[in-house]
């Protein structure tokens, strides 16, 4: 791409900020949603544990986004675990639905 370096830098920062704030929140939300279902505890306890942990997931996700060498890797580190957890969530909800 023929962008000037300053603009390119700004776009890279904007992209990472989006990955960190939006992506990080989405990832921690999916993690909380899945953990609340699969943790072997009473439902209320599982929800609380999952929610408590989700902020730590969020924080780690943000650190990852800004530590990654390229913006692609930064996004990859958010999307890949997000997809895995999301698939897990889908399977668990479907299993629960068929069980009930």
């Amino acid at each position: 791409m023929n962008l000037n370096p300053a603009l390119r830098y700004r776009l890279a920062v904007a992209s990472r900020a989006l990955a960190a704030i939006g992506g990080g929140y989405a990832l921690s939300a999916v993690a909380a949603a899945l953990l609340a279902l699969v943790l072997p505890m009473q439902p209320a306890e599982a929800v609380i544990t999952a929610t408590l942990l989700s902020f730590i997931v969020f924080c780690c996700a943000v650190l990852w986004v800004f530590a990654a060498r390229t913006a692609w890797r930064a996004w990859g580190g958010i999307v890949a675990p997000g997809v895995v957890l999301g698939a897990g969530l889908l399977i668990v909800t479907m299993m629960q639905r068929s069980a009930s």
Partner: protein
Amino acid sequence: MREGFRQSMAWLHTWSGLLVCWVLFLVFCAGTASYFREEITLWMKPELHASHSAPITNAQAAQTALTALQSKAPDASRWFITLPAERSTALRIGWISPPPKDAPPKTRGKFTSQIIDPLTGEKMPDVRETRGGEFLYRLHFDLHYMPPLWARWIVGFCAMFMLVAIVSGVITHKRIFKDFFTFRPKKGQRSWLDAHNATAVLALPYHLMITYTGLVTLMFMYMPWGIQTAYKGNQESFFADVFPSAKNGKPAGKPMPLTPLQPLLAQAEQRWHGIPAVGITINHPGDANATIQIRRQEEKGLNYIQPSVQFNGVTGALVSADNEDIGGANATRGVLYGLHIGHFANPLLRVLFFLCGLSGCAMVATGALLWAVKTRQGYAKKLAAGGRVGFGLRLVEALNIGAIAGLPIAFAAYFWANRLLPVAMPKRPDAEISWFFIAWGVAAVLAQIRPDRRMWQWQLWAGALLFMGIPVLNVFTTSSHLGVTLFMAQGPWSVAGFDLTVLALGIALALAAWHLGRKKKAPKKAGKQHPQETSEAGLQEAA
């Protein structure tokens, strides 16, 4: 973002900290003051200072409150009684009156609350209306002039930035232990870095704890997704599992006399091995479906969740005992929450929390100043050639003055307003709060117009004089000034403590302002850096 892990984290630390630092400074200052919420409220109601030490048993107080409620609000749908306790010695009653008959459905009843004399049940005469410490407490997460929901999202957003800033700050730090003992004064940027490191590292566990637990207090709002899946989005059934509390059924519409309160109170306190009750809620008093909930005082434990018992309001039979056996995760949440609000702390520990909070204010302030000093150095050549600093730096410098020097003025204005406004003024609490924001607004606008060293000096002096003036103002406006509370040793001690604290804060601000003026006279080259350096000295002392 940068070459190398540590450099990336330094970049992240800088920007995640800078972007939200002014909101964080407000949250930290108001939150730190909230450790003494009850004491501030008491200080702001000087009419209650004299009645402070009248001892009365819980049973007597409850009976007085009940009699008062029966005569004042016989038709109310709910009665509330807050019994005198260690830190809040007033007896308070409240009630929700039923909405008028012609009101649209779902209209909520109006809530009324009064402080009453524990002996006669009469409303305390001429106690000035004020939000007291409650305003500062709400300010630290509900902000003001906006719906609380927005404010909580904004504060949560900033808190998450803060969490990221703390963790990345720790990673950035190569020599965290050594820096703790390093301070190189009068070296411009270096000194700022040292001051920032010292205030941050000194109370690091506290900063980390307070930020994370702050998120935890509102976590079900920020992160409702676990409830969404595990409870299929049914928040009510989740909260019923987590917070079992008075089941507020419907009134039967059949009048029935209320069971006597005292035996229930005795039964509850016996159940809690003598730990007294703190609050009583009576649903549908005088109805066949009346219930009575009694809540326990906070024990000296970390968990903020306290047991409560519920009785049938007609027969007096025990309906349920709640929060006596809490699950592990919920207890963990309760402890984290409890750590944030610090109700368990005895006076000494509370002071320590307050000091840690002040060091948090100093950490945020020094961080903001460090950025400005560092960036200004980047402009050194341009400035020497007669150029101007960029828009970003000017904005940050002005915001720094408006927040760091301006906020103390706002706090002081709030306390001054409490003493100066007419006691019987209508809408008095709102007027006090207006003083807070008008004072702050003026300081912030002036800072934007003229963000220079002079402005730092003026605003620091203004804050210093206002704070130091509070104990003096007390002499003229109350009969519970330091001369009485301290020198004649009549107490209340919390009122004396408030006066001494604002005096100390005022002196710290004055030292900062004085230091600033002295620096200016000294012939030094790197002029513009010093205002910030000195104001930090004041903050350090305050911490």
